[in-house]
């Protein structure tokens, strides 16, 4: 490659090397078949959630006289005891899961990284205080903490366009549980990088602390951030569905994979197993796809982490 370049373009400064993005993608597809399957399923789920209105669905909250009918052409996944179309509820439930999963992950990864940068790089009293707060916040099993938080924060939540009160509360609860965990991992990475030569070099040429943190350290954490995002997202979706299953998730009636498996619907599962099977299957497949993708991304992006977790 270098030889060919040297002979065909001697001293040619106009030469632009071919873009290698697709090459990277092709390599990912051949080396990580499982990750590719995961990525395809994830894309399908996202497509299903976005394009739900045109995919043979009806209003997922609408009651109808057609109760507990088994899967047919009209109702691909059958209907619930209130006559709601299960196929529609699965697709619209995907919207809720993806919306909550994505917003919690974005907030907690960015928040955790930011705090880790400040804490790990500056050290001192900030580091000590944040470290002790983290110790307290991780002293409870995640699902329990989210459950307690979700029930105790209540009345006055800020309005966010496109999200209901229940969804905002879920996002807050899951973020408070996940951020400390991400903070711990990222802080470790910051400590590792803090004394690297490139940081020292930046300091020598007189870069400010802020500049070092955001222009030098942050880009070096990007790979780890992507990996953490891909492993946290399925965990966030699982936590959302577990809370909804326990009845402290989204508002009653909102299509949600977790909520659709709980409550009064349970007594009809034996007679109409499709009510239980399809939402659970959608949830499991989505989480599985994200996990497969995350695993492959970790192997590709961060070889050091290949054998961790």
């Amino acid at each position, binding site marked *: 490659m270098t030889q060919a370049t040297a002979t065909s373009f001697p001293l040619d400064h106009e030469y632009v090397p071919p873009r290698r993005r697709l090459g990277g993608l092709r390599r990912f597809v051949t080396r990580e078949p499982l990750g590719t399957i995961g990525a395809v399923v994830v894309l399908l789920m996202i497509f299903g959630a976005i394009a739900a209105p045109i995919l043979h669905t009806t209003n997922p909250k609408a009651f109808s006289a057609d109760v507990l009918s088994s899967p047919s052409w009209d109702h691909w996944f059958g209907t619930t005891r209130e006559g709601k179309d299960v196929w529609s509820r699965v697709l619209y439930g995907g919207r809720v899961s993806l919306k909550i999963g994505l917003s919690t992950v974005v907030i907690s990864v960015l928040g955790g990284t930011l705090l880790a940068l400040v804490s790990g790089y500056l050290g001192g009293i900030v580091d000590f205080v944040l470290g002790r707060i983290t*110790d307290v916040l991780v002293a409870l099993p995640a699902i329990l903490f989210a459950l307690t938080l979700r029930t105790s924060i209540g009345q006055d939540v800020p309005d966010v366009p496109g999200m209901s009160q229940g969804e905002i509360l879920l996002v807050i609860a899951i973020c408070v549980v996940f951020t400390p965990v991400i903070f711990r991992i990222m802080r470790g990475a910051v400590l590792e990088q803090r004394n690297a030569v490139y940081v020292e070099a930046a300091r020598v040429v007189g870069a400010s602390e802020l500049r070092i943190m955001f222009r030098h350290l942050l880009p070096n954490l990007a790979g780890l951030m992507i990996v953490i995002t891909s492993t946290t997202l399925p965990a966030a979706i699982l936590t959302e569905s577990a809370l909804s299953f326990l009845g402290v998730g989204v508002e009653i009636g909102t299509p949600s994979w977790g909520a659709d498996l709980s409550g009064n619907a349970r007594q009809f599962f034996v007679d109409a197993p499709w009510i239980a099977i399809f939402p659970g299957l959608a949830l499991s497949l989505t989480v599985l796809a994200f996990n497969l993708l995350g695993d492959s991304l970790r192997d590709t992006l961060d070889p050091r982490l290949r054998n961790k977790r």
Partner: protein
Amino acid sequence: MWAYIIRRLIAVPFMLFGLSALLFWLLYLRPGNAALTNFGLVSPDQTKDAVANLEKDLGLDRPAVVQYFDWAGHALTGDLGESLKNRRSISGQIGERLPNTVEIAVLTILITAAIGIPVGILSAIRPGSWLDYSLRVVTIAGISIPSFWVATLLLILPVIWWGWTPLHQNYVNFTTDPLENLRIVIWPALVLAVSSAAYVARIVRSSMLETLYSDYVRTARAKGLRERVVIIQHVFRSSLVTLLTVIGLQFGAVLGGSVIAEQIFAIPGIGLLTYQAVFNVDYTLVLGVTMVFALMFVLINLAVDILYTFVDPRIRY
């Protein structure tokens, strides 16, 4: 080492203090909370007086700090106050139900170790083989499937296929009838063990792969040790530290999962108690149960850290 253990022991009360203060603040100090939740005691068109009386009765009219330290002082003596709903002693309720939850947790961890460790070893012996590949797919599926769906399928599919259900209507204590009790608790334990075992298997595999190609393993093979001895005594042994950490963490996950499993299988443990407390908006009970969970979780993590030094003599604090 003793200095380390003592340092860690000193940190425990501070952690519990911080957590309890945080939860207390979250649960108690929303105005009118505890009083308003006691609908049974106040008529629907409650007057300000009624609420004020009730708050006075429950001691909620005192300053928050006074309330907290009053609670904490009693908690230190093992008295977690009384439930808002039925005025029963919280410590008593927890004491009654805690053994059931601990039993399920221990059983789950045993199943987890019994399945997860061999699967992980099998996977690591020949990395890249079809066996390794399929086990990896199975374990990644294991950590992806939510326990409440596994439990739901376990409750409906056997009924549809064979007309048999693993769900028992009446819970029997271990002390009353050990065999009958095991027949009940084995199901939630199995359900919770699915993801834990899958997780443990993944950890065992990856930590064994780290050492599989190291010099001392080659030496062990070179001096003619049998493959089984090499794998178990040299490779697996080195991953024990990681394994311990993970099993400790899984204990926490199982305790959290007990809220779901006990609710589905109607097991009267503290998981179910938490669920009911949350639904009855019984704040004192939520606080008490949560602190018991936290205490267990913190102590297990502490025990794991201390066990390190015995498993791996290289670790010196």
